[in-house]
């Protein structure tokens, strides 16, 4: 089960990068970037998995030597990464809106005034 998660997350990252390379629409490039971010989020959360563990919410008295819980640190890292992914999407969509207003097209082959 857990190996399947790792394979799926690397597949998502590769799919995201592939979308950025081969698609010629700006919105599709943004979608590719988001897919790569979601792939990394899946990787982070799968690393913390401990088979048979419970949720890591304990108070001072309940925790003993035998408590068996999943790793809480990757959960915090995943939340941070989701926030960052949302911010990247927001900022890039704002840039896409302004680009469409000023160039009139969403094709990356047309948006190349700076070259050489």
């Amino acid at each position, binding site marked *: 089960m857990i190996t399947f998660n790792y394979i799926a997350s690397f597949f998502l*990252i590769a799919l*995201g*990068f592939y979308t*950025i*390379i*081969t*698609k*010629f629409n*700006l919105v599709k*490039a*943004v979608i590719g*970037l988001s897919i*790569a*971010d979601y792939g*990394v989020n899946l*990787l*982070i959360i799968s*690393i913390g998995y401990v088979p048979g563990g419970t949720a890591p919410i304990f108070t001072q008295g309940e925790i003993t030597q035998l408590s068996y819980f999943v*790793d809480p*640190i*990757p959960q915090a*890292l995943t939340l*941070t*990464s989701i926030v*960052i992914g949302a*911010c*990247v999407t927001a*900022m*890039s969509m704002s*840039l*896409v809106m*302004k*680009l469409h207003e*000023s*160039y009139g097209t969403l094709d*990356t*082959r047309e*948006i*190349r*005034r*700076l*070259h*050489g």
Partner: protein
Amino acid sequence: MSNFMNYIHFPIYSVMVLFLGAFLIVVLGKNKTLRSIIAVLSVSISLACMIALIKPVMVNGEVIAYWMGNRVPAGGYAIGIAMEVDALSLFFGLLISTAVFVSTVYSIQYMAHDENIPQYYTLLLMLAGGVMGLVLSGDIFNMFIMVEILTFAAVALTAFRNRVFGALEAAFKYLVVGCMGSTCILAGTIMLYANAHTLNFAQLSAIIPGNMNTSTKIAFALLFVGFSTKAFIVPFHPLAADAHGAAPASISVLISGVLTKSGIYGIIRLTYFLFQTMGLSTFQFLLVFIGCVSMFLCVTMALAQHDFKRLLAFHSISQIGYVLTAVGLFTAVGFSSGIYHALNHTLFKGLLFLAAGAVLHETGTTNLDELGGLSKKMPHTTVLFLIGAFSISGIPPFNGFASKWMIYQACYQKAVESGNIGYVLVTVICLVTSVLTLASFVKVSQSVFFGRLPEKYENVKEVSFGMRLAMGIFALLCVLTGLFPDLVGKYLTQPAATAAFNASSYIDAMLGEGYAASAMGPFLPAAQNVVFYEAGVWSPMSWLLIMCIVLLAITIVAVTSKYDRVSAVSSGEADAKHALFFSGEEAVYSQVGGSDLFWGFKHNWRHYFSFMHDLHSGILNDYALWAVVDLALVMLFMLIVL
């Protein structure tokens, strides 16, 4: 309140005061004087905290290990978020605070006519806070967060002037490829966490080098490519060229002087501390190869440019190639000359970008074919620009010569010591690049500042005092670091080089004495004494004297002989019989456009230049393809070599 002034809190002050300044400007930003006061005060406090740390960290050799919330390690395991300041971090911190201070002083006058100015200052202070947090942090996930903060701030500032030619598309390309790089850094960090179950940098440096397996090698490749995206080395240099050209000049100073250095800092931390693979000669070959390719490719691309700031951007990446080559040599001379060159590059490249900004502010264009003869109208800017141009070309009393001389010496000594003839080729490439840099700056000064002034720029005046003050600070620092290289070495670069070669003192300071020896066992890096001798005998003061005498001679000749090229050409137009020769028109002075100098060189290399021009096509998909190919090649290299 005595706890407040204890110097161990100074690193966190210099990061937090920048963020606090940014948030205060969000609330209080409408008032112009209040905004300028808050901005200058925050960056000054940050710079003062960094300078106050020179005595404990650089002179006494202590490493400040600061656990946030006082969560000290329990049971030998690091459980808190840490900040660690050793001499290498403090060196980069000083460099960054100086560049941010000068850029803020400059932008008070430079951005006075723009709109949305409070957002500009907020983003500027967030960028500065992000970079300071990156170099002073001791936790690898914290470094990733700071990298994201600085990427967003830099992208927003690149697109700040929406109506500048190409600003939006430069920002979009930088965002997409930059976020690909950040995704790689995050993936690498997570794979390291999966192996070591800790995020603390010192503990990772103790655990990872002894236990390298396939996943840590892949993590190394991902982290290396991620940080080289931030440093803009080959093949990510087109993003730098686009972003520098479109951003306001005070932001170009920060992108070229501060963001690239943060990428170099990340690469140094990875290779010297975290993975400790610099001992392998094949790995040194990787860094030296990437450095040489960056140097040579970017300086030849710069010769073909028509835009002033784009040309300066390519030169910036070429100098970063110098730094990476010198750092990759893994000798004491090499490392200290590399980081000395990083310091000098921030100073002289900042000066050049500020001068370009002054020209843009007054004339409204940066096209080399249209400008000319501005030295008559803007004499102070010309002198300051020439100081910067002399520095970057490596002319004796200025700082570029001191660091480039040490780099040549380091490459040649490496060739002699290791017996590998390839390093002689590296020295030759460094020298040829320096010559081509000089050629390029002769072209730029001729076409922008000397020559004939076009009529439309007759009303150009000198820039205002605040901007000249900022340029003057950089010029003064350029001259000082060039005249006193032994003082710079003793206080700044040698402690940093000592810190880089002694990773075990870094680990011990954070996790307690003896941790490095117990955790690493046979892989403990030996403490090396950093001692080297400079080649040749040269005294900067005598070179300064020679340069002053030569300049005085040139000035006396120019003033007393009343030499004026324009009158020499148009003196014939009063004679009517020559009017027939020019088919009835008066004699026309044809301006040699800036991009037409060295046309012979460009004609001979026309196939190379047209190939390079087509390769840098400006399409986003091409740049993303280069990024992925680079990732694949580096991953293959790491899996095979390590």
